[in-house]
């Protein structure tokens, strides 16, 4: 029971990360397609300036919580995904620099360089996150010592000994790229003014059918890649509300965007991302990391869960800490609410 609580706490924190950092990753992906002048670029970056770092904290806090609650999973997965994880770390470093250092030196070359870094790292991170989630869903070749080490690719097939990249995980990467770009477009439509708002809205509109199509492809693909993923759903038919909610969210996005209710269409997109992730997590539970080798057991919640004392104490401080975090976020988003414009920025007199 307490294991389930921690499973959903970690899943929830990672979902919060995807929804929140997702829009600023999306902004990074779209920067070259949207911003035509320095004025535009500054406006785009201002829309995420005060919040991107806080958004990224959900990844760190989620990672720390995962380590605390499921040490075996942390040890096995992080060493097993060694190379892609290190690449993600390097991309996170580059991305932080891209956002924060671009305006430090007044030079076209300097700014273009950091904009390029920002776009490239944001796009690759989206792809890596999608592929990472797909890896967890598909499973990895866990050994009897509960460790594994995945090469970047093998034969591009799912199966007993897959690589980080195969047809399914690449598909996952593309889904994430499209979904986060779309998410970012809706954020910009909400935060920007004038031409930029119109262009962002137009991009969201164009990405939408792609998103719907790729979402529909990803569902059966998941069942092919991991036939077991339907087991939870068959056991608890109430879970079929998840795909229904995905559809509802998609329809809501389209309607709200058409009505120019940019905040609500962005929130609908947040719901879409959250429900997709909840669906994936529900399909996994009670497994944390599936084994592709039928002879070796999956890593489950029960096996990886930390001792009884720490996870009970943890529940107390975690609840208190997250209450504070939500409070900070509310204050911050409320203070920086509304539209942003470039030369005015947030602190114009």
């Amino acid at each position, binding site marked *: 029971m307490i294991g389930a609580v921690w499973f959903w706490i970690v899943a929830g924190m990672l979902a919060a990360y995807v929804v929140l950092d997702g829009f600023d990753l999306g902004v990074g992906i779209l920067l070259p397609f949207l911003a035509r002048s320095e004025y535009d670029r500054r406006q785009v970056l201002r829309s995420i300036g005060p919040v991107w*770092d806080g958004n990224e904290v959900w990844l*760190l806090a989620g*990672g720390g919580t995962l380590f605390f609650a499921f040490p075996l999973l942390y040890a096995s997965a992080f060493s*097993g995904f060694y190379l892609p994880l290190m690449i993600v770390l390097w991309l*996170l470093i580059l991305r932080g620099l891209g956002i924060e*250092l671009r305006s430090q030196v007044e030079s076209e070359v300097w700014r273009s360089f950091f904009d390029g870094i920002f776009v490239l790292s944001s796009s690759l991170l989206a792809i890596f996150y999608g592929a990472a989630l797909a890896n967890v869903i598909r499973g990895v070749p866990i050994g009897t010592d509960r460790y594994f080490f995945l090469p970047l690719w093998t034969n591009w097939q799912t199966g007993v000994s897959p690589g980080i990249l195969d047809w399914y995980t690449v598909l996952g990467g593309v889904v994430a790229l499209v979904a986060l770009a779309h998410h970012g477009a809706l954020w910009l439509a909400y935060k920007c003014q004038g031409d930029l708002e119109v262009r962002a809205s137009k991009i969201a509109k164009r990405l939408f059918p792609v998103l719907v199509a790729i979402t529909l492809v990803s569902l059966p693909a998941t069942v092919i890649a991991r036939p077991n993923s339907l087991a939870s759903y068959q056991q608890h038919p109430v879970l079929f509300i998840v795909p229904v909610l995905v559809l509802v969210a998609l329809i809501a996005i389209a309607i709200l965007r058409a009505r120019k209710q940019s905040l609500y269409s962005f929130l609908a997109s947040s719901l879409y991302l959250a429900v997709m992730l909840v669906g994936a997590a529900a399909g996994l539970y009670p497994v944390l990391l599936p084994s592709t080798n039928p002879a070796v057991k999956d890593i489950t919640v029960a096996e990886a869960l930390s001792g009884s*004392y720490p996870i009970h104490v943890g529940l107390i401080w975690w609840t208190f800490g997250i209450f504070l*975090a939500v409070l900070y976020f509310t204050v*911050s988003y409320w203070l920086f609410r509304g539209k942003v414009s470039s030369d005015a920025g947030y602190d114009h*007199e």
Partner: protein
Amino acid sequence: MDRLLLDRIQFAFTITYHYLFPQLTMGLALLIVVLKWIALRKNDERYNQAARFWAKIFAVNFVLGVVTGIPMEFQFGTNWSEFSRQTGGVIGQPLAMEGVFSFFLESTFLGLFLFGEKRISRLAHFGAAFMVWLGSWISGFFIIVTDAWMQHPVAYHVLPNGTYEVASFRGLLLNPWAWIQYAHNMCGAVVTGAFVMAATGAFYLLDKREVEFGKLFLKVGVIAGLLSCLVQIFPTGDIHGRYVAKHQPAAMAGMEGLFHSEMGAPIVLMGQPNMEQQKIDNPLAVNKVLSFLIYGTTRAEVQGLDHFPRDQWPTTLPLLYYSYHIMAGLGTWFALLMVVAVFLLWRGKLYTTRWVLWPILLSFPLPYIANTAGWMTAEIGRQPWLVYGLLRTAAGYSPHVSSGNSLFTLLGFLGMYSVLSILWVVIVYRVIQQGPNMPKNNNETLAA
């Protein structure tokens, strides 16, 4: 190449490089709060402008601290998975708490502090600066709790599968080692912040520009510098040293280069440890002082390295010895310099005394070296243990990550961090060149 060595070098390199930034931001955060406080109390806009200038330096260093900090949290799992699996039930707790209690606080209020000065009242802006300081110091606390458990494991029990679980949450957080190490470390961060501020002030005065701000930085810098330097030596350094002597006697013997147990042991001020002949070459020593420092009496016996089996000696012993001596030597220099500076400040002569301004300017890199050397003393002294007395370093790394992969990522970090260093120099140089008299709303700068 040896797996264990590569993993150790990668962790040592990435953590040492990372800590160049937090030591400044944790120290500066406090000094910025002080500047904002004076501005509020005296209703003096110059102090606000000074705070804005330091906020720019802070912002750059904070970003570099954040991006180089992310790999630290993940490297426990990537490179030290056996350590993580066995001790996650203990150290997972403070590490997760750092994320939940500190990172959210820091990041949110830093956004407010840097972007929100026009949106919130002066008092609220002071509050934002205060929260950034609080967040960064809470972060330091949880990291030190983690390290302190590795140095001096308390409040745990062993589960049937051989892994460790925290037995008392209070016991873990109230580990005495953590509190004394925390006091010593945070004080060290203030030394770095104060020296950087004082050196910038000395630079402006010697360069004959921004004179008003130069004086202001110098004044705040040397006063904070003197206080932190003195507390660094006594009581924090003193108590910390006794703790090490009590709980890690082999580490203490290594730090002091004491090869043989001795009554009335001398303190070695200089000299080179000769591992082959087990003695100190060219020693410059003061008799009986070590016994006195540890036990309060000149006659007490201090255990030398010969007291311990060879497999419990700290590995890379000469490096431990040098790290400790560099830290202690620099600490002495800091205290001397600051005593002279504050005396001259009191006499009203500091701003014109060039022979003191120059050493203050040139000393700015030294606290970085001292802080690094201090951490090297703590962590090399802990060897050959990952968790002192419980888990050997050689038993902690990831079993399936090959040395080729370790070397690949080590080289990647070396390359990436070289680029970061160049960017840091360019940007900080530019901010200092620009000076504190910049226009109030610098739109060119996204972060300030």
